[in-house]
């Protein structure tokens, strides 16, 4: 299935994208087309291939089938592609012995930002973490670590943000801060792919919604005013009964 971009510029396009691990096909025949400011909310049960798809779009995993282009770079891309992406995986990707500020600042420097310290400070402020910025990450709660992770992934204002379960571990205020931050990013033209099990939070940001099952997109649609409860019914029906 294909979604047409809501903006003229296509930022993510894939045609029959797939990935095999030995004889096992983790992702198959994924065709997408997302424009600037689009947000695809991707739902699906564990093992559906969502993370594998995200890692391919992030340039961290080489596709074995099909083709794709992200931010004008053909997959699997290289340094140019990686420079345009902010990636949040379900692991924190942080160094526990370093402080929140040092983790974010390291990413800012690796992405070549000139004033990395200031950029890190602003990114942590956006996630409402300035007073804990010098605390080693291993001493922060799971929710606080997740906020640092989000600050790290977005410190360089990427064109494309790929998020794998970003709401995990966040309390209400953290979820609200993240939702507000992602809405701001979307409004500024950032293209997002959001993998989550939390359907209402995902749909609140989405311009496109898809359900992934057994490595393939089982359903994909475009819209803005989603009815979360009816979508949840559709999701359960598709995932549980395959209908």
């Amino acid at each position: 299935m294909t979604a047409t971009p809501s903006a003229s510029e296509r930022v993510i396009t894939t045609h029959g994208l797939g990935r095999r691990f030995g004889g096992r096909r983790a992702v198959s025949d994924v065709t997408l087309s997302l424009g600037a400011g689009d947000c695809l909310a991707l739902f699906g049960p564990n093992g559906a291939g969502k993370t594998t798809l995200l890692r391919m779009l992030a340039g961290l995993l080489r596709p074995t089938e099909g083709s794709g282009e992200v931010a004008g770079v053909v997959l699997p891309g290289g340094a140019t592609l990686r420079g345009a992406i902010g990636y949040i995986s379900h692991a924190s990707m942080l160094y526990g012995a370093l402080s929140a500020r040092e983790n974010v600042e390291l990413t800012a420097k690796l992405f070549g930002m000139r004033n990395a310290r200031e950029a890190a400070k602003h990114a942590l402020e956006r996630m409402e973490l300035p007073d804990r910025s010098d605390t080693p990450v291993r001493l922060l709660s799971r929710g606080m670590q997740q906020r640092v992770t989000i600050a790290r992934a977005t410190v360089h204002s990427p064109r494309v943000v790929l998020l794998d379960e970003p709401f995990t571990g966040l309390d209400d205020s953290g979820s609200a801060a993240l939702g507000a931050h992602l809405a701001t990013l979307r409004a500024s033209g950032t293209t997002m792919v959001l993998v989550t099990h939390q359907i209402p939070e995902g749909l609140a940001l989405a311009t496109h919604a898809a359900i992934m099952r057994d490595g393939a997109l089982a359903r994909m649609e475009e819209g803005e005013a989603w009815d979360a409860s009816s979508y949840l019914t559709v999701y359960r029906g598709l995932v549980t009964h395959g209908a």
Partner: protein
Amino acid sequence: MAPSTLGAALLIARKDLAIEFRTRTAFFSAVTFALLGIVIFFFAWDPTAVSAMDLAPGVLWGIFTFAGLLGLQRSFGVEQADRAIDTLLGAPIPRESIYLGKAIANFVFVAAVQVLAIPAVALFYNVPLLEHAVALATIAVLAAIGLVAVGTLFSAMAVNTHLAEMLLPVLSLPFFVPIVIPAAQGTARLLAGRPAGEIIGWLKLLVAFDIVFVAACMLAFPFTIEE
């Protein structure tokens, strides 16, 4: 603009050294291992059968090799917790800079262990190591470059396996042999007061292995981390 290969490598090395400075787990383990090894060899040594001049170089380089492995083990181990390696892999920097940064940090680690272990060997075995400080430092630096070049690559390869702690020595030690032999031979000749010409031959061998290992390992590294 993303940092250059060397710029990114220095950022990564600085980050690794900051982590090690704060936790000190690998450094204290390596220094303790080195000092214990020196003491055990000392008490097992029969001075009437083997002279200190003959034994000390072997002890020194045997200890460095195994103590260095403790640091190399940790090199990519710190990246595995919470998949921090993805922060480096997702950055717009050449893959080679990750290898180079890790190798620089490992070199500092091995050199720091050497700085503490060499005086300990001089003290226990009463050999004039410190009288030849400059020449010994040259051998130590060249040997450390070779050891960390190979060890950093194998650390990256082993870390994703279930048997990382066993696999790293099994993979690395055969490749350490061409480094340890010239280092030990050069040190032995230095202590025996042999002519400089005899030592320079071993130094040239160390330089040759360093060039080959650094170039080959840096080229091979991107293939070990690509999925």
